[in-house]
C-alpha cells in the first residue's frame, strides 16, 4: 500500500490525509475518511500538499555567509559558527523566533535550547500574539488554556455565533462542519465587517462597523441581563465574578449601540435571545495573527459563560488557530514567560522541576518577545517563518548575527549569516496540536535528501556543540521528556497516537462538572470607544487574509495550483488591491482594477481598486498577504497592526 496515513500541516484544523508515497517522493494526496475532524474532506491547500513537498525550492545544504554571499558548508561548520557567535553575545541580546509550523518536539527543543543552553528567555512565536490572548482568557476563566469546545461536537450545537472570522477560507473544514450543522437545522449568526462566505450561509448576518465587535458582544450580554435571559442557576452554581461584569455592562448606553456598530439592534437582540434560549451553543473567532484584542475576547467569553453555554455538550468558546501548530507551540512554552503546558516560568516549583530535569538553574525572570526587542537584539535565531523579519527589515539587517533554520527557502535567508536546513514533516516523526488541543502524530514517510537532519537532531547537535549533553534517539524520546514535564501531555506518547490522536489533558472538551473550580468571568473594562472616520479620512481600512495565501505566502508560492490561484488574484492586481464597494467606486469614478491611492495619517500607497459588494461603502479592505504592500505601507502602521482583527486605519482613497 503506497498510501500512508498522516495529517495535513497547513492550518489549525489538523485534517487527516493519506499521502501517495513511492520511493523518496510524494506523488499525491487523498483525504482520510475515518478522521474524526475532517471525515474525508480537504481544502484547496490540503489537496495540493504534494506540490509543496516536491518543490525544488528546498534548502539542500547548510550555508554560511562569507563576503556577503551564502556559501555551502557542512553542518559541523555551520553549527560551530552559530554557537561561537551566540556565545559572544550576552543572553539578553539574543532572541529566538520560533515557528507555529514546527512540530511540538522541535519547538520544545528550541525552547530548551534558548533557556537551558543559551540562558535567555527572549523566545516567542513569530508575531502571533493573538492566540496568547485567547489562551490567557480561557485559562484565567477555566484553567484550560485553549479551545473549550470540541470540533466533533459542532453537529450538536443548536446555535453558533461566528465573530470576525472568514472561516470557510481560514479553516475551511471547520467552516464545512458549521455549514453542515446549519443545513441540519442549527442556527448560525455571523458578525463580521465583511460579507464572507459563512455570512452568506448563515441564518443571520450582522455587517458591523470596523472596531465595534466588543460593543456588539457587550450589548448582547446586556440584553441577557435586561431580559432576564442569563442562566442564573448556572451562574450561581458554577461561576464567580458575575456581579462585577454586570456592573461594567450597565455603563453601556443602548442609544449608542446602533450608531457605533452600524447594525440594527433588533438583530443583535434576536441573536442574544437565540443564544440564551438554545440548548447548546458555540462561538468561533479567529485566534492568531488576525485575532481580537483581549477585551473583545473577554467579552465573548463572558457572554457565553452568562448564557451557561460552556463546559457542556455542544457548547464552547472556540478560538480558531489559523496555523497548524499554533496551539502546540504555546503548549511547548514558546513564550517569554511560559514553560510547557501553560506552566508559568515564575512559578518556583515548576522552574525547579525543569531545572532538575535539565540539570541547569533556569533564569526565572520572563524575557521579551524578539519583535519587542528590535533595535536592542544583537543575535537572532529564527525558524521557518518570516513575518517579523519582513516587518523589521531595518533592525534585522543591522544585527550582528542572524541564523535561519527551515526546510524551505525563504525571504529570511537574505538576512541570515548561517542557514541550517531541516527535514520536512514527512521526513521525520513529529506531533502537532490542532486548534481543539488534539495532538496528532505525523510519521516519517520518506528519507530526507542527502544528510539533511530532522529538527530535533539539528537542535541536539547545536546543544552538544555548546557543551550540553542531550541524548535523544528519536522524536519519540523528546515526547517522553515533554510528557514527564507537562501535566497536560502526561498521557501522550508516540506509540499511543493512532488515527485522530489524543487531546491534551485527556479531555475531549472543557467540562464544567470536572473542572474542579469555579469559572471566573474575565476582567472587562467599560471603554466602548470605536475607531472613527473623520472628514479628512472618511473610510475605515481593514486588514485581512485570503484563502490560498495567508501570511507571507511562503509555502503557497512553492506549489503549482495554489500558486496559480494566488496569481489569479495577483495577475489581476499586481501591486495588491484595496476592496471598495460599488457605491464608493462610483463616487470616486473608478472601476475594477483602476489605480487608486490610499492615504492615512501615517503614510500612503498606490494600489488597484477591487470593486466588490463584500464591503460597506464606508469601509475598505486590503489583503495582508501581498509582500509589496506589507513591507511598504504596513511598516508605517506597525503600532496600529498590533490590534489584530480589529486593526482599522482611517484613510481616504483618491483616484490616481
Amino acid at each position, binding site marked *: *500500500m503506497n498510501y500512508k496515513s498522516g495529517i495535513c500541516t497547513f492550518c489549525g484544523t489538523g485534517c487527516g490525509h493519506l499521502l501517495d508515497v513511492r520511493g523518496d517522493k510524494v506523488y499525491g494526496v487523498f483525504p482520510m475518511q475515518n478522521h474524526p475532524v475532517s471525515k474525508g*474532506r*480537504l481544502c484547496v491547500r490540503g489537496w495540493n500538499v504534494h506540490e509543496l513537498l516536491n518543490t525544488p525550492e528546498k534548502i539542500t545544504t547548510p550555508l554560511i555567509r562569507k563576503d556577503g554571499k551564502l556559501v555551502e558548508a557542512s553542518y559541523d561548520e555551520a553549527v560551530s559558527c552559530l554557537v561561537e557567535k551566540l556565545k559572544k553575545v550576552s543572553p539578553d541580546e539574543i532572541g529566538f523566533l520560533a515557528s507555529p509550523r514546527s512540530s511540538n518536539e522541535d519547538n520544545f527543543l528550541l525552547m530548551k535550547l534558548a533557556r537551558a543552553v543559551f540562558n535567555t528567555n527572549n523566545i516567542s512565536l513569530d508575531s502571533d500574539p493573538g492566540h496568547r490572548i485567547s489562551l490567557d482568557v480561557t485559562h484565567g476563566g477555566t484553567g484550560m488554556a485553549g479551545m473549550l469546545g470540541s470540533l466533533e461536537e459542532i453537529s450538536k450545537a443548536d446555535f453558533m455565533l461566528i465573530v470576525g472570522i472568514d472561516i470557510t477560507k481560514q479553516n475551511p473544514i471547520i467552516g464545512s462542519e458549521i455549514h453542515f450543522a446549519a443545513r441540519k437545522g442549527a442556527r448560525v449568526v455571523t458578525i463580521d465587517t465583511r460579507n464572507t462566505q459563512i455570512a452568506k450561509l448563515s441564518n443571520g448576518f450582522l455587517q458591523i462597523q470596523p472596531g465595534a465587535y466588543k460593543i456588539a458582544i457587550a450589548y448582547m450580554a446586556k440584553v441577557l441581563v435586561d431580559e432576564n435571559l442569563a442562566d442564573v442557576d448556572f451562574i450561581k452554581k458554577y461561576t464567580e465574578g458575575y456581579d462585577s461584569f454586570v456592573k461594567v455592562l450597565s455603563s453601556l448606553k443602548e442609544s449608542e449601540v446602533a450608531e457605533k456598530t452600524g447594525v440594527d439592534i433588533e438583530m443583535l437582540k434576536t441573536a442574544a435571545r437565540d443564544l440564551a434560549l438554545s440548548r447548546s451553543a458555540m462561538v468561533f473567532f479567529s485566534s492568531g495573527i488576525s485575532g481580537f484584542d483581549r477585551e473583545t475576547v473577554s467579552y465573548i467569553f463572558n457572554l457565553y459563560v452568562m448564557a451557561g453555554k460552556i463546559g457542556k455538550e455542544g457548547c464552547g468558546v472556540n478560538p480558531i488557530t489559523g496555523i497548524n501548530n499554533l496551539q502546540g507551540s504555546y503548549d511547548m512554552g514558546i513564550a517569554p514567560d511560559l514553560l510547557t503546558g501553560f506552566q508559568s516560568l515564575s512559578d518556583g516549583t515548576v522552574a525547579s522541576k525543569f531545572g532538575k530535569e535539565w540539570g541547569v538553574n533556569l533564569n526565572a525572570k520572563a524575557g521579551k518577545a524578539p519583535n519587542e526587542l528590535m533595535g536592542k537584539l544583537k543575535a537572532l535565531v529564527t525558524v521557518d517563518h518570516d513575518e517579523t523579519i519582513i516587518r523589521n527589515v531595518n533592525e534585522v539587517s543591522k544585527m550582528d548575527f542572524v541564523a535561519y533554520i527551515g526546510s524551505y527557502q525563504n525571504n529570511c535567508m537574505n538576512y541570515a549569516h548561517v542557514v541550517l536546513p531541516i527535514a520536512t514533516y514527512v521526513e521525520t516523526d513529529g506531533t502537532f496540536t490542532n486548534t481543539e488541543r488534539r495532538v496528532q502524530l505525523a510519521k516519517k514517510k520518506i528519507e530526507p535528501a542527502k544528510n539533511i537532519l530532522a529538527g530535533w537532531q539539528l537542535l541536539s547537535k547545536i546543544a552538544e556543540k555548546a557543551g550540553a549533553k542531550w541524548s535523544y534517539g528519536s522524536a519519540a524520546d523528546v515526547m517522553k521528556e515533554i510528557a514527564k514535564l507537562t501535566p497536560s501531555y502526561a498521557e501522550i506518547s508516540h506509540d499511543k497516537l493512532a488515527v485522530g490522536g489524543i487531546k491534551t489533558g485527556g479531555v475531549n472538551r472543557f467540562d464544567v462538572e470536572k473542572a474542579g473550580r469555579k469559572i471566573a468571568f474575565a476582567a472587562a473594562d467599560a471603554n466602548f470607544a470605536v475607531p472613527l472616520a473623520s472628514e479628512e479620512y472618511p473610510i475605515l481600512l481593514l486588514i485581512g487574509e485570503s484563502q490560498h495565501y495567508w501570511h507571507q505566502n511562503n509555502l503557497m508560492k512553492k506549489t503549482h495550483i495554489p500558486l496559480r490561484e494566488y496569481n489569479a488574484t495577483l495577475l489581476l492586481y499586481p501591486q495588491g488591491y484595496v476592496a471598495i464597494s460599488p457605491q464608493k467606486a462610483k463616487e470616486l469614478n473608478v472601476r475594477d482594477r483602476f489605480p487608486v491611492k490610499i492615504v492615512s495619517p501615517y503614510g500612503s500607497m498606490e494600489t488597484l481598486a477591487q470593486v466588490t459588494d463584500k464591503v460597506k461603502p464606508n469601509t475598505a479592505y486590503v489583503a495582508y498577504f501581498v509582500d509589496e504592500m506589507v513591507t511598504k505601507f504596513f511598516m508605517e502602521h506597525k503600532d496600529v497592526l498590533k490590534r489584530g482583527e480589529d486593526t482599522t486605519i482611517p484613510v481616504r482613497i483618491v483616484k490616481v
Partner: protein
Amino acid sequence: MYLINKSQVSDIAKELQKEYQVYGPVMEKETKQCMFVKVDDIAELDLNAPIPALPPKHTLFPQFERIMSYQYDKKNQKVDIKPDFDVSKKALFGLRSCDLTGVLCMDRFFLGQEFVDDVYKNHRKNMFIVTNTCNVPFKQCFCVCTDSGPSAQEGYDLNLTDLGDQYLVEAGSDKGKALAEKLGLKKSDDSHKKAKADVIDKSIDKFDSIAKDNKAWISRVVNRVTTGLIDEKVWEYIGNQCLECGACSFVCPSCTCFNIVDPVTGPETADRMRTWDSCSYEGYSRMAGGHNPRHPVEDRRSKRFFCKLSYSQSKKYLRPGCVGCGRCQWVCPGDIGLPNVVTYIRRDIQK
C-alpha cells in the same frame, strides 16, 4: 462464460501479475479506508471491500505525473526533449462498473477526439481490466440512474459476478478469453446466466433500502441543464456553498481536466508535469489577458454540472458524464455533491 471457485478467484490476479502490475481494492490497515492501489502481495486484494475512496482514474491519469523532460545543452544551444513517463503494463482487478464507466468516459476524452493523448494512450493500450458486479449498493450509490451499473456491460476483459460459492467469469475480449482458457476455467451454462440476472435484479432492488442518500432524478435534470431552464438563483444557492477545494473533480472517475507545469529541476534540466485540475478553481478559466469568463463561483459550479449532465456533453461521451458513484458527495465540504445538486434543481422544477 466461465466459472471459478471463490477460493480460487485470486488465481486470476496471480496469473495477471506475471505480466502486469496489478491494481485493485485494498484496505489501508490503520485507517480502514479502501483505496484502489498497486499490490505486491495478491492476498492484499479484497473483492468484498467497500467501494474504493480513491477511484482507479490515477492508473491512467495520475494526480501528479511527469510526462516529458528537457535537457538544455547550453554550449550547442540545443534542447533535448523526450517523453518521460511510466510505461509499465497495468491490470485493474476488481473494478466496479461505475469506475469502468469512468474509464470509458476518459477514453472518449483522451483518445476519441481529434487529438490523441500519447501518455494516456500508453497507459491504456496495455491495460487488462477485470470488473466485479456489485451485488449490494453502498449508501451513496446511484449508478442505476446513470446507466453505469451495477454490472459492467462493455469495456472489460473479464467480468466477475459473485454467485455464492463461485464467481461467474465473463470474457469481454480475446485477451480475457485467452486468460480464462489458460487458467482452465470450467464453462458455465444458461442457469448461471440467469443466476447473474437475479443477482443484478436483487442488487437494484436494494437501492431503495440501502442507497437512500441519493434519489437522483438524472434524466429530467439532464433536460433542464441542457436547455438552460434553471433559475440563476438555484446556481447562486449552489455556488454560495462551494468552498473551491477541487475535491469533486479529483475524486470523479470521469473528470479529465489537467494543468501543465514545467518545474526547473537543475541548471540545465526541467520536467513537464501534468497535474489534476479543477473547474472550481478561479485560476482554471482565467485567460492570458486576465479576463475570466467564469469569475463568480456559481458560474464555475454551473459549468461543472453542465459538463456532467448536459446533452451536448453527453454527445461527446455517448453517455452522461456522471457515473453515479457518489464520491463527490463524500468529499464535498459544501454539501453540493452532484446528487444534492440534482435534488436542488428538481426542487426548483417542482416549484
